[in-house]
């Protein structure tokens, strides 16, 4: 059973909802422009992104004075794209994939490896082939380094990547054996990279190489298939496993529908996934125009990055100086989300895990800094309650009545409704 499409044209709250989920939030003008559209058209247009980026990005990682500063600049450059870029859905998907095919800057500090990885997430953001995407990730220097497959050699297997490929990237736990992990590692021996190794060489380019001499050519059995399997076979078998459709569809539902996805709806997407051989664009187009998507309101707790980007996009993308933007990447980090650095390879758990006393305090402080602080960006147009909360008459409306526009905006930004999408 596939997902039922939304039968009505979008009303104002539908449009605001769609933009909260697919564009981090939007101004009143952007919401109005969507009202009356057909849901399928809205989804198709949002997914029709190319690889153009925001002009005037002030951060160039190549200019970093050491590995630490280049990481700062890499994060700053991504935040700039998230806030000011022409394709917010592409960036939302890249952020989602960075929490699926996880790498971390604790181990990956080479500027080209990081740029290559991020480019991969953007190019495959709505990929036509999840298998191709998985293969390119598996062969990226960032992933080879992060999960140690560059150290995986014949007779001396390192099974770190082989395990996470199954547990976290494709089938999920419960659909493979320890033996599959061992055999997968054998098949992936010899996949490594050259160049850009070591902390000192953070500016040197690196590329995937297959080291035939380190490859274990013997017979293996993996996910029920036997033969002289090679790395490409392992990726194909894992990425096209029927359970992968369910496991990754569920992650898309977590990103776009609800922190606690509905099992039947996930099955609907998984079926489309299998029918289209892992065409993520087709799955997303159906998902983002479905009745289930539009019925699922305020069921996702915005992550720290989504909170920051959502606030700035709702405020009309005000100009911020470079220093302030860099500070925002750090603020998001203190709220629990450092770009390109989830706490571990499983990624951020998200949902209610974003919320605790400390992170709530930081959200309050940041909302005040963006609206009431001495360095608050100027408000060109006061966002409506709809743009801020997704509701034409939110519960916080009465409390905001007697406040001036900046204060009212602050109050909405700290309301439970703004924390949700």
């Amino acid at each position, binding site marked *: 059973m596939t997902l039922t499409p939304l039968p009505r044209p979008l009303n104002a709250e539908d449009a605001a909802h769609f933009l909260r989920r697919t564009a981090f939030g939007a101004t009143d003008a952007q919401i109005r422009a969507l009202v009356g559209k057909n849901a399928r058209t809205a989804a198709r247009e949002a997914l029709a992104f190319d690889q153009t980026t925001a002009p005037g990005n002030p951060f160039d990682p190549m200019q970093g004075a050491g590995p630490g500063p280049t990481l700062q600049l890499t994060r700053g450059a991504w935040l700039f794209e998230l806030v000011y870029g022409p394709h917010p859905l592409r960036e939302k998907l890249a952020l989602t994939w960075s929490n699926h095919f996880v790498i971390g800057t*604790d181990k990956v500090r080479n500027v080209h490896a990081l740029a290559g990885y991020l480019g991969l997430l953007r190019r495959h953001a709505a990929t036509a082939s999840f298998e191709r995407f998985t293969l390119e990730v598996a062969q990226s220097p960032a992933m080879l380094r992060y999960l*140690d497959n560059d*150290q*995986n*050699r014949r*007779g*001396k*297997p*390192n*099974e*770190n990547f082989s*395990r996470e490929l199954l*547990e976290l990237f494709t089938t999920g*736990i419960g659909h493979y054996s*320890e033996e599959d992990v061992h055999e997968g590692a054998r098949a992936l021996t010899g996949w490594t990279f050259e160049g850009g190794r070591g902390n000192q060489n953070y500016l040197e380019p690196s590329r995937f190489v297959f080291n035939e001499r380190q490859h274990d050519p013997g017979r293996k059995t993996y996910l029920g298939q036997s033969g002289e399997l090679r790395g490409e076979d392992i990726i194909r078998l894992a990425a096209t496993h029927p359970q992968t459709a369910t496991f990754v569809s569920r992650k898309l539902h977590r990103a776009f529908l609800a*922190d606690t996805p509905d099992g039947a709806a996930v099955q609907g997407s998984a079926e489309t996934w299998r029918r289209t051989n892992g065409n993520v664009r087709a799955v997303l187009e159906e998902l983002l125009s479905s009745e289930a998507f539009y019925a699922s309101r*305020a*069921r996702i*707790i915005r992550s720290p990055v989504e909170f920051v980007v959502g606030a700035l996009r709702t405020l009309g993308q005000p100009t911020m100086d470079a220093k302030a933007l860099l500070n925002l990447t750090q603020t998001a980090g*203190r*709220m*629990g989300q450092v770009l390109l650095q989830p*706490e*571990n*390879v*499983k990624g951020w758990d998200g949902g*209610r*895990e974003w*919320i*605790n*006393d*400390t*992170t*709530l*305090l930081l959200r*309050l*402080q940041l909302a*005040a800094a963006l609206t*009431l602080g001495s360095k608050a960006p100027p408000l060109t147009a006061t966002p409506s309650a709809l743009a801020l909360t997704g509701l034409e008459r939110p*519960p*916080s409306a*009465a*409390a*905001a009545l*007697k*406040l001036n526009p900046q*204060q009212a905006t*602050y*109050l909405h930004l*700290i*309301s*439970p*409704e703004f*924390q*949700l999408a």
Partner: protein
Amino acid sequence: MTNRRDFLKLSALAAAATTGMPGFLARAAAQAGGSRTLVVIQLTGGNDGLNTLVPYSNGAYYAARPTIAIPKKDVLTLTPDLGMHPALRPLMGLWDGGRMAWMENVGYPNPNRSHFASMAIWHTADPSQAQSDGWIGRLAESIGDPFCASNIGAATPQALRASEFSLPSIDTVEQFQLKLPQGLGGAFGDMLDAARSGEAAFLTQATRQMMKNTARVQGGAQRYRAGATYPDGRFAAQLRDTARLIAAGVGQRVLYVSLGGFDTHAGQRADQDELLGTLASGLAAFHADLERQGLAENVVVMGFSEFGRRVAENGSAGTDHGKGSVMFALGSGVRGGVHGSSPDLEDLSDGDIKYRQDFRGVYAEALSGWLGLNAREILNGDFSGPGWLA
């Protein structure tokens, strides 16, 4: 054993007593409430137990680890068979004073080599993975106080998840306070008072709880002065905040601190050596601070990792995920020594040691023996430990 009802009364008394009272009085009141504290240290990533508590007289250990074994000459000798990794030297004073315990060969049935599954098992104290609440969350619910346990750090681990409320994470004590902009207190209150459901209601409740918790901490934490010099770095800073919260006497029974990076698949020696140094120097300063504050008698530290590592090193001078490992404990309330027998390195299960002590027995002793709680209720079963408390 004190029952749950008594604890409800005691924690209410401690909460009432500590508000606006001078530090020493508040501390006395909290102590009257039976306020011993358990500090849990999580070593995230799977700490290699064999290179932590080293079986230096065992040839099989050296045979399995030609590159990364700790040479016998470097080991800090504890017993004729076991010694500590040299980076743990700052803890030797505690060992010599009989205030450090090692629990050998700890694990659980049907070990899981996934970081996340295994960590969840340690957090929920449930190897069947049926529970979603953490063992400290259940502890807090049995006490009935959403502030009796806190995580020190930004993200709350699953161990502190409770079904009825969320336990706080305190990133830094200094910044743990609510400062609303001038003139907006009334509007803030009205905004929170509006009726809500679903995730919005959850967020409203979390905000109200945060307001209570910050008020409670700021009521007691301002008078603390560190009684020892802590090393640099985040882990030591978190231990200093832990000492500060204990000194504030605001009624927290469990405090939780994590140190990550133990997933040493490659080049293990450099990484683990540095991490164990961070661990030991931080804990030594923490203990010295508590002694200076006159609080050392009230605090026990208990440390764990989600699993140990494979006995044999891999081809990258590292180790892959394993099964059982060691736990440790520090404090005046601890029975010093090595508890439990060391694993047989020549009788392995799939390349891993076979655990002999269920970690829930170690937890059970902390719960009943140290905190005076009903371990059976919190852990959903009877578990006996190795007798690591004095």
